[in-house]
């Protein structure tokens, strides 16, 4: 079995158009996984290897995090292609979970853009050590020094270059490695022949200064190196060890540069991945002990321990469902039986493969810390597999953020109807934040998710992959209702005229609760409501939660307590008590001062400083609370909290306001009360809809 310290699970993350896919393509070429190079928007129509979905190829963006495997200098590297859009929150988060380290790609012209800031923030949150690669040094206007400064200022990374480019833009010759103090050239048609030479004299002085700076920064992480530097005898090994220590502690970010398109610097980047990024045991991963209230337990990374593996991605292949898993401890063997912790179901490992985007390679076993794919296992994305049912651990919390936006979709014909349900079935399995249901009143199919783009992509995928043409309704914000004070009820449901009668009386109160959605408390004493009808009351209350009385939104944060009631020997029944509970809830709900809540998004808009005033004005108009602004060079980042309902079409507005020079990202922040005037509007609208 492979030595676990020689495994690297890395992600490549970047702003759109920084050349992520091209770089991945080159990596696969140099590691001999592919034998020809295609471009992302290639004329040959083949496209880069990692973008396996047609849609991504067309738009030139990467949506799904396909995993691919390659070897470099005796090390195994699993590359997880992470999506760059914040809208695909769960997708990004899952990808970040399974990787141990990351390469942050930046365009040498564009520098740190808003997307990089968001991705960087997420990486810091998940404690992913990273190395930076400044790509596109061949472009006109390339300025790696400016990008390094931005890395320090905007991303607060201790970014220090460990290379110096020999020439920029059109006449980039190669790179100088500051660790070994050698000039490196990339010869041959595909830059695959590496030539090492002495540093040309014109770069000598610059390199000495930059090396000094690098040694200063990196000697903070090694006393041995610090002493050696003072004595003037630092060795290559010492410097590399110190860079590794600094990188792993996330207090140091080595910066490399090059141009993937012109085949320069990629091999050195691979060397850095192997030398500086962590192997699985270097990273502390935690499993949740389901027997002990999801307490965190560190995984052992030991291949002989019981199995713990996370399914982080599903794909619908030609031969059925393909499940990407990352093992955290234990060994996954062909023929073994494994247990899905969420469902408790046993499954047998039939085929085990190592993925190379669309191609695959059969293997017999995968040790701890590896990333492989399984065939024919029925599961959802985010499920944990263990070796036995007594080993009750999960790699992910069962908590999934609730969707904030929804829209209705209608298939255009019968064929589309079939395909649509197939597609929806698949998507909901892949992505827990994507939900679908049929509205019982309008009989429309509703899909809901984490943002406009999130839903757009699924609608597109439906059309392309499943040939399901649908018409899409206007997006709807997922409002919620909650109550703000305690209110009592005492309701009798009675229908005793003709036929079998119905009788049930329930009394009690409803009250707001801080955390959680709903709770049912039974405080009946003396059996005024017979035992068997208590669950009926619970059921009745729960039915009321789906549609609140104000605007028909989901009701959350309510505790229902029943304290008294009455029953009839003949006429009481399950349904009678359900109806009594519904009546009681409705009676109390109006008295409990219900209010409407709406999702608030954290918006970060970035643009040239001269547009700051108008960007702020536009956010202000959209009921946004501006938290603050941050000025950097000629750019300003404005952070604000804006209700999602006001954000529709903002990208168009922002572009026209700023001559297309500003962009923004948004993330779900919290649910907050809707201001009174807006609430009245919503209620009036809901009333109108009801009447129709």
């Amino acid at each position, binding site marked *: 079995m492979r030595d676990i310290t020689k495994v690297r699970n890395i992600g490549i993350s970047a702003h759109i158009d920084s050349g992520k896919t091209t770089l991945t393509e080159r990596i696969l070429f140099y590691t001999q996984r592919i034998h020809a190079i295609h471009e992302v928007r290639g004329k040959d129509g083949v496209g880069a290897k990692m973008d396996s979905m047609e849609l991504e190829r067309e738009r030139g963006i990467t949506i799904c995090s396909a995993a691919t495997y390659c070897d470099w200098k005796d090390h195994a590297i699993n590359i997880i292609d992470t999506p760059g859009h914040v809208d695909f929150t769960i997708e990004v988060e899952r990808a970040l979970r399974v990787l141990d380290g990351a390469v942050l790609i930046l365009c040498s012209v564009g520098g740190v853009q808003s997307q990089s800031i968001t991705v960087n923030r997420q990486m810091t949150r998940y404690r992913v050590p990273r190395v930076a690669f400044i790509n596109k040094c061949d472009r006109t206007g390339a300025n790696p020094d400016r990008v390094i400064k931005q890395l320090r200022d905007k991303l607060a990374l201790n970014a220090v270059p460990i290379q110096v480019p020999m020439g920029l833009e059109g006449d980039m010759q190669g790179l100088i490695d500051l660790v070994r103090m050698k000039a490196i050239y990339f010869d041959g048609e595909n830059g695959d022949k590496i030539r090492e030479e002495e540093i040309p004299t014109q770069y000598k002085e610059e390199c000495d200064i930059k090396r000094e700076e690098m040694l200063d920064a990196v000697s903070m992480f090694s006393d041995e190196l610090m002493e050696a530097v003072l004595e003037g005898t630092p060795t290559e090994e010492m410097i590399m060890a110190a860079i590794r220590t600094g990188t792993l502690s996330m207090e140091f970010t080595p910066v490399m540069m090059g141009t993937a398109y012109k085949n320069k610097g990629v091999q050195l980047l691979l060397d850095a991945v192997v030398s500086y990024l962590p192997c699985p045991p270097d990273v502390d991963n935690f499993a949740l002990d389901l027997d002990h209230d999801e307490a965190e337990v560190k995984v052992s990374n030991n291949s002989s321990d019981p199995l713990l593996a996370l399914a982080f991605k599903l794909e619908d292949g030609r031969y059925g469902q393909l499940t990407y898993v990352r093992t955290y401890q234990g060994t996954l063997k062909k023929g073994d039986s494994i247990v899905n912790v969420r469902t408790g179901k046993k499954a047998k490992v039939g085929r085990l493969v190592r993925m190379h985007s669309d191609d695959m390679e059969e293997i017999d076993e995968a040790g701890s810390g590896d990333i492989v794919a399984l065939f024919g296992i029925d599961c959802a994305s985010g499920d944990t597999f263990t070796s036995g049912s007594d080993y009750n651990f999960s790699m992910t919390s069962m908590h999934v953020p609730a969707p904030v936006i929804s829209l209705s979709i209608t298939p255009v014909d019968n064929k589309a109807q079939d395909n649509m349900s197939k597609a929806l079935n698949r998507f909901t399995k892949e992505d827990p934040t994507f939900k679908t249901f049929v509205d019982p009143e309008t009989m429309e199919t509703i899909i809901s998710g984490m943002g406009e783009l999130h839903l757009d992509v699924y609608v597109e995928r439906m059309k392309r992959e499943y040939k399901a043409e649908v018409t899409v309704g206007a997006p709807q914000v997922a409002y919620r209702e909650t109550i703000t004070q305690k209110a009592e009820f005492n309701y009798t449901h009675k229908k005793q005229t003709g036929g079998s009668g119905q009788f049930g009386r329930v009394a009690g109160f409803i009250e707001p609760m801080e955390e959680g959605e709903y709770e049912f408390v039974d405080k009946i004493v003396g059996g005024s409501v017979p035992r068997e009808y208590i669950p009926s009351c619970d059921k009745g209350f729960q039915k009321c939660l789906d549609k609140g009385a104000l605007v028909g939104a989901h009701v959350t944060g309510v505790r229902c307590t029943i304290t008294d009631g009455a029953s009839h020997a003949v006429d009481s029944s399950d349904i009678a008590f359900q109806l009594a509970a519904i009546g009681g809830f409705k009676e109390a709900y109006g008295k409990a001062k219900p209010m409407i809540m709406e999702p608030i998004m954290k918006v970060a808009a970035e643009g040239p400083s001269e547009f700051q005033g108008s960007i702020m004005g536009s956010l202000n108009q959209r009921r946004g609370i501006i938290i603050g602004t*941050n000025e950097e060079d000629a750019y300003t980042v404005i952070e604000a909290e804006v209700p999602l309902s006001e954000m529709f079409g903002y990208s168009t507005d922002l572009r026209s306001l700023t001559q297309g020079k500003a962009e923004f990202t948004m993330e779900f922040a919290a649910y907050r009360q809707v201001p009174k005037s807006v609430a009245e509007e919503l209620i009036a609208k809901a009333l109108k809809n009801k009447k129709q």
Partner: protein
Amino acid sequence: MLKKDLIEKNPIRHLKGESDAKESSRMGLVMAQAGAGKTALLVQIALDTLLNDKQVVHVSVGQSLDKTKLWYDDMFKDIAEGCKLENAGEIHDAIMRNRMIITFNESKFSLAKLEERLHDLMQQNVIKPSCMVVDGFDFVKTERTVLEGLREMAKAMDLQIWFSAVCSDGADSQGATGVPAPCKGMEDLFNTVVLLQPVPQSDCLELKIIKGSAAVSKCGKLLKLDPQTLMIREDCK
């Protein structure tokens, strides 16, 4: 406790003088060694203004937006919990609408830029502050004329401004009036100058009023800064 009581009980009100924007309390300065609680004091001054339903601009030089926001959230939480404030969540949401943070990189800060930003904000009707706190302003590298300019701007915009400054080390740095470097010789520009310094044989920090009106000086003797929470209080032992 209700919001009204909190405003009245808040010891910080003494420091700020009678009204937010009177000429006699136009500019204030908080000085201390690094890490002694300058930002905490400024945030409390800002929070008092916010609690009075007035607007505040917080200018932070060299600190990130998130960090500054966290200061407010933490300080507000401490205050709200300390006096068992009713409807704390609602009050928090309401007053934070009146706060705006502007952050600058150390090298990018300039008076002209700040003035432009403030004008922008007012023109767009985003905010009309009555108090501005400036944290991390580098007095060592600042010319006197810049501060004079700021004072004029404050007057034109009807603002009260509070600054923080890090004291330079060494006893000889104190000028005749007791204002330490780097602000030595600028004291005439400030109406109130507060020095935060440790009290001997105690954990507390004392607010030494170097310059200020009689009322401010009187209350200064009573105010202390709790080193754990960095909250101002009247009864610290």
